[in-house]
């Protein structure tokens, strides 16, 4: 019962603030609502007993990436942008395509019996006290089974770092 209340609480916050993220005119407000959505998702991770991912979400997404976003938003002057047109010209076509996508995925979920209220109970599958210690389990999996993807991810981050420096550097 507690699990359900927590899930509905965080899910409602996540969806509402996601909608506000894409509709707000002011970009800083968008960023704030995106932070709220990410924190709500972190709450859902915690409800799924993925503690390590919960804190990674907070440290990396909220404390790292979103700080970068807010920083860039403040560097580029946005007093002008607030007064400009919010949505692109093709918004109706775009909406239509997105809704078609939603209908398609929804249909797939429905036909395989995965609509809300159906499907296997997630939390009952493995009881919470039978789970291994989360951060230890993740570390084991990450450094034993998925060592090569881990190395590739670090190379990707290195490339991204170099790319960001080259991009943002002033050409003299």
């Amino acid at each position, binding site marked *: 019962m507690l699990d359900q209340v927590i899930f509905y609480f965080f899910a409602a916050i996540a969806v509402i603030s996601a909608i506000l993220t*894409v509709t707000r005119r002011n*970009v800083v407000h968008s960023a704030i609502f995106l932070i709220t959505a990410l924190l709500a998702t972190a709450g859902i991770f915690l409800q799924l007993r993925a503690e390590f991912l919960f804190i990674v979400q907070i440290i990396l997404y909220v404390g790292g990436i979103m700080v970068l976003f807010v920083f860039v938003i403040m560097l580029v002057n946005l007093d002008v942008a607030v007064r400009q047109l919010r949505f692109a010209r093709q918004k109706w076509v775009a909406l239509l395509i997105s809704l078609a996508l939603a209908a398609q995925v929804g249909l797939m979920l429905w036909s395989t019996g995965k609509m809300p209220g159906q499907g296997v109970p997630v939390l009952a599958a493995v009881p919470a006290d039978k789970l291994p210690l989360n951060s230890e389990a993740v570390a084991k999996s990450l450094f034993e089974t998925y060592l090569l993807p881990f190395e590739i991810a670090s190379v990707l981050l290195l490339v991204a770092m170099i790319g960001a420096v080259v991009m943002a550097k002033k050409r003299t």
Partner: protein
Amino acid sequence: MLPIGHYLFLGLALFIIGVIGVVTRRNVIVILMSIELILNAVNINLVAFSRLYGDVAGQVFALFIIADAAAEAAVGLGIIIAFFRNRETVLEDEMDLLKW
């Protein structure tokens, strides 16, 4: 108890909202933020399935996706700063020159 469908549906909702944001907004920063929403929606699905099957592989892949999101945000924001320095705009439909 909560069935898997709840989580999948939440992921779907966030994904669609993200897609709508990407295709309709003009501001590139908001577009990047919508992409973060999409990646996040995928993470919810991965973690829910990881819990369902009692296998942490899903969480490991969610970690990779977060690393990917960090890389994407860094490069994307770097491009935005470089572009803003030259053109004084962050609107995607004004990015219409191949060389400047």
